[in-house]
């Protein structure tokens, strides 16, 4: 029997706390880093790309829109990568609204619909009315739903001036002056190029995508099948910097300081893990002592 039952009871809790301490310390450091104002880092830290070619492409595509243009936002981001594209998506929507475009939001994937609902509620809270943004809902079945939407994208229950405007132009994809695809892993803009463009060849498509899709989508930009593409964080933030209507508050964009801290921690762990076997071979006595 133990002499001190209370310390026996505390031992597993202390062990668990010791194990979790590095993770908790990292979370605290990231939280503190995100509180550092971006001006404090100055020119020493910079995420936004200095090359504005792709950001300029998105600007140019939006500038070509006629007045009160109907723009379809195909919202198929996924929960795993949306944190990366969120500031750019929000800036693009703010940019389109500032230019007077009428937006219709539709999703073809379940995760895309969940994120679209969250964004729609945020936009409604910011004062976007039904004459500015329409919810065309969820058209399931991914690519089959996408092909089905080519000839009819407005649900019967959809109401409001934007839904009526789309109906008056045939209720199909030809009604739109532009499609902004918010791409994710489940249904990327590749499906739009492969399935929609052969059927609606004159439809201009622009896309916002996570970095991992860049090698897949870049050729479509070079061939002109995509009118604009923002597919990395630096390109996206270069675009956000040029949008006067974008929300640049600390909570709305990606901070350079937490990004730097996260990358340095990752580098440190990788270097330590790579060097550990070498150290063990060169100083076996010391490693045995450390345990």
């Amino acid at each position, binding site marked *: 029997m133990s002499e001190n039952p209370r310390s026996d009871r505390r031992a597993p809790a202390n062990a668990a706390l010791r194990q979790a301490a590095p993770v908790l310390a*990292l979370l605290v450091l990231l939280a503190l880093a995100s509180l550092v104002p971006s001006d404090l880092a100055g*020119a020493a*830290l910079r995420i936004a790309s200095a090359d504005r070619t792709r950001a300029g492409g998105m600007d140019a595509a939006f500038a070509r829109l006629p007045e009160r243009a109907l723009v379809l936002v195909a919202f198929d981001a996924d929960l795993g990568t949306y944190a990366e594209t969120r500031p750019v998506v929000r800036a693009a929507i703010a940019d389109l609204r500032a230019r007077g475009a009428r937006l219709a939001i539709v999703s073809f994937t379940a995760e895309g619909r969940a994120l679209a609902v969250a964004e729609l509620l945020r936009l409604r809270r910011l004062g976007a009315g039904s004459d500015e943004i329409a919810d065309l809902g969820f058209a399931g079945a991914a690519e089959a739903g996408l*092909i089905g939407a080519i000839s009819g994208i407005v649900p019967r229950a959809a109401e409001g001036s934007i839904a009526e405007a789309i109906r008056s132009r045939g209720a199909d994809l030809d009604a739109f002056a532009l499609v902004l695809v918010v791409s994710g892993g489940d249904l990327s803009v590749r499906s739009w190029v492969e399935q929609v463009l052969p059927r609606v060849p004159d439809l201009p498509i622009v896309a916002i995508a996570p970095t991992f899709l*860049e*090698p*897949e989508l870049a050729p479509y930009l070079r061939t002109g099948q995509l009118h604009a593409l923002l597919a990395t964080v630096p390109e996206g933030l270069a675009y956000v910097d040029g949008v006067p209507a974008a929300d640049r508050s600390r909570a709305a964009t990606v901070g350079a300081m937490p990004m730097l801290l996260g990358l340095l921690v*990752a*580098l440190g762990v990788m270097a330590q893990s790579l060097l550990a076997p070498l150290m063990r071979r060169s100083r076996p006595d010391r490693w045995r002592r450390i345990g």
Partner: protein
Amino acid sequence: MRRSLTAGLALATGTILLLDLLILNPSLELVAGGVVELLILLAAAAAVGGAATLAAHHLPDLARDGPDRWGAVMLLGGMGLILVAGLRPGSNGSSDPAVNWLVSALLVPIASSLFALVFLFLLGAIRRGLSIGTREATITVVAASVMVALLLPVGGAPGAALATAAAWMRDVPLAAVFRGLLIGIAILVSVSAARILLGVGSTDD
């Protein structure tokens, strides 16, 4: 018999959709539209079937003691909550405000926080992978370290040099491997589809 029926159906639907893509014809468009509608219905039926199977699988856990019981309570409770919000009389279905609130206030934040843990799990996986000491793990981590170093958000001339090197890595070696994979997958899918249609090497009957 079963094989020839499946192959015949696949051949007919594939040909209709392909011809609709190549030829502008209202009748063909109508038939292709019908096929697509059928596909959408089949996908919806598969989704409902999947959800029903999941519920049936976890229903017996409610009666058993143990950690699975609370998991089953959470899963079935969540499913029930969404179904009630979307199917109750007077509801707007998937666009109902109650469904929207459940999705935006509960589902999205919970799922996003789970994905945020990937960073920590990945670092843990790197440590464990390297402790095993395989050559593949070492090469992967060295390549990842180089990419992470190139992505450091540094300003000025050093930052520009890092960004240029990162863009080259992404546009040349990474893109080459990625496109090679895509082309390989496309060839494999074409060969598999042709084998199914022609009934070569199938063992399903």
